[in-house]
């Protein structure tokens, strides 16, 4: 029982990342009808927004500290982050410590901008081209973005820790009446899951309860008619692309403490996220979220020792296996709609 609860919890954070990326992919596909292979790269750029912010915050000037000396007897040079000058030492240290959550604010405008530029500059010209062309050009873009990041940040993972307040783990077992230390779960993963749920909720609420969202939903259902009604649907879809980019970016920002970002993390997630989207059903937002969590949890179940003893290697292939079974039995995925990508 404890093991099962633990695996569900473990699956939730990976599932959250899958769900967020798949949600963004589906938003883009549902609105613009474009298959975006560069979405993983957006996730990766989001993660590097967090890295960049923490580097900006730790920009330092050199100060000579007269009270200490190094081993040669010279006065010691100390790096003092510039934020200390503006906010004082205590607040400055706290700001540096909280750089990952702060990066959310930093990443939103950047990701929106990247998304809009990408749509206006490149994707716009591919609406009328076949899906294969869209896949190929965004695949090329993903390679380019990834290599640019590699050039500036190097090929090694860059550790970006969570704030001290969220270090450590939470003892779920004790709370639920099991023995202590059986089910422990890092605080940051709880935060990540909560954040993902909040983001998913926000996107759905935005689409469901605002006029803008209503127009976008109408456009997804019948773009031509909405256009004929005198609404500039293209502009709204461009904004939705920016929004989808921001969702992917935020998923990346918050993921940095779980896995140190490296330049190819986007591609690693992209392959699985596409499987998630297809399992959920192309064009279905709830399907994408559901499939993300289901596959994340299944993956962590498959890596249990008891399972691996019976079926070794299952954790490596479970996602693909499930995808194959679902695609063959439910041709449109879990919640796919009729008439989407059927030709």
């Amino acid at each position, binding site marked *: 029982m404890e093991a099962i609860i633990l695996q569900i919890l473990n699956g939730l954070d990976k599932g959250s990342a899958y769900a967020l990326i798949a949600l963004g992919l589906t938003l883009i596909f549902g609105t613009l009808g474009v*298959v975006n292979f560069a979405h993983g790269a957006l996730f990766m750029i989001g993660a590097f927004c967090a890295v960049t912010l923490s580097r900006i915050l730790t920009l330092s000037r050199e100060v000579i500290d007269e009270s200490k000396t190094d081993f040669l007897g010279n006065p010691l040079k100390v790096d003092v982050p510039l934020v200390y000058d503006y906010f004082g030492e205590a607040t400055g240290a706290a700001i540096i410590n909280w750089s990952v959550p702060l990066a959310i604010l930093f990443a939103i405008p950047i990701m929106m901008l990247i998304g809009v530029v990408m749509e206006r500059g*490149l994707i716009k*010209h591919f609406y009328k*081209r*076949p*899906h*294969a*062309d869209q*896949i*190929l*050009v965004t*695949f*090329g*873009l*993903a*390679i*380019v973005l*990834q*290599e*640019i990041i*590699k*050039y500036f940040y190097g090929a090694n993972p860059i550790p970006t820790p969570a704030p001290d307040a969220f270090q450590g783990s939470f003892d779920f077992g004790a709370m639920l009446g099991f023995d202590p230390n059986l089910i422990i779960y890092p605080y940051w993963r709880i935060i990540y899951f909560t954040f993902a749920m909040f983001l998913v909720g926000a996107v759905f609420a935005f689409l469901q309860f605002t006029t803008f969202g209503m127009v976008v939903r109408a456009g997804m259902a019948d773009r031509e008619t909405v256009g004929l009604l005198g609404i500039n649907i293209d502009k709204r879809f461009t904004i939705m692309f920016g929004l989808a980019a921001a969702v992917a970016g935020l998923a990346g920002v918050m993921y940095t403490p779980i896995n140190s970002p490296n330049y190819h993390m986007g*591609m690693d997630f992209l*392959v699985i996220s*596409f*499987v998630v989207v*297809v399992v959920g059903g*192309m064009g279905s937002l709830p399907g994408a979220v559901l499939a993300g969590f289901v596959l994340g949890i299944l993956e962590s179940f498959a890596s249990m020792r008891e399972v691996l003893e019976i079926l*070794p*290697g299952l954790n*490596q*292939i479970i996602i*693909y*296996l499930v*995808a*194959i079974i679902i*695609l*063959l039995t439910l*041709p449109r995925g879990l919640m796919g709609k009729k008439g989407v*990508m*059927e*030709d």
Partner: protein
Amino acid sequence: MLGLDRKDFRLMMFVVVLTLLAPFILNPFPEGSGLAQFNAGYPDLMQRFVIFGIFAIGFNILFGLTGYLSFGHAAFLGVGSYGAIWMMKLVTLNVIPAIIAGIIVAGIFAIAVGYISLRRSGIYFSILTLAFAQMSYALAYSVLTPLTGGETGLQIKPTDRPILSNLQDGEIGRANLFGMDMRQSFELNMGDWLFTFNAGYYIAAVVMLISFYVSIRIFRSPFGVMLRAVKSNQTRMYYTGLNARPYTLAAFVISGMYAGLAGGLLVAMDTQVGPERMFWTASGEVVLMTILGGAGTRIGPVLGAGAIKYMENILSKINKDILYEWFAFLPDGMTDFLVAIVYPFVGKGWHLTLGIIFMAVVIFLPGGLVEGGQRLARIFGRGKTKEADATQSTPAE
């Protein structure tokens, strides 16, 4: 001639001459000169040109003709390689049975994968093939270790005693063709130039020419026309009473067997194999090759494979020192500036160049390098050139 019409025959002859004279053509710069690093005429790289050419030709039969975009084609290459190396480890070190084993194993695997994947089309098909390839990769990496050697892969070891090859005790087996060692080379010195004629390369080249010939025949056959019909309008095919699936499955299996052939040849050349050969980036690479050269054209995939392998091996070797040498004639500030600009695109960053070229091709030249050649030919008004009649351009779908 040979069952080809005149245009095809000319193209075929062009490719024959190109491959047979490759050691000359790829070594245009004298040894020791500053440009010698652009020479690609060494055996390892030339073998890779033709072998990946075969891989791309096979991929083009599926993607170029039927429009089904497989994102997991490297799995067949990998499976073929494993089949070939086991043949070499157990039965004989002669490469021909090994290559045949590679083709057969890959073909059987392709029947299984194709039978399931071809139930869906479009992006679903791409994802299904990707899923199968990733599964094969993960399994080869972990559970199937006794069969695949896991992370370290398989090599021919001193303890391997193939039944049909008489090896001395402790002698390490080497791949051969009826006694001719694959690594055997004949070197020709002409003034400053050094040309290497490698046995392995010529065997691979002959195999490539045969597969190229077969692919032209497929393109021109009624079967090929049927595959094009699948690409242009499948629904209409159904309404005329034809079931598309046997045709697409046949194309899929043929293309899988080409990949197996390429895998077998790779093993014949370097007698080793590892699971990374099946990773999805390897599948992505063959897609890049085919698109870059021109999907649906006859010669495009070979050109694309050559271009990418050339970049991978030559561009990636340029480092900062070499750049400084090149731009040394400029004033100091200019040199630093130019090196700073060029450096991200070469050496370890060659993928960036690849990505940019690839995007440019997809955006501006959907027909790939072949279409580029055609346009140039039209601009210069030289009528039909070799490249121009290489295609009745049918861009990728």
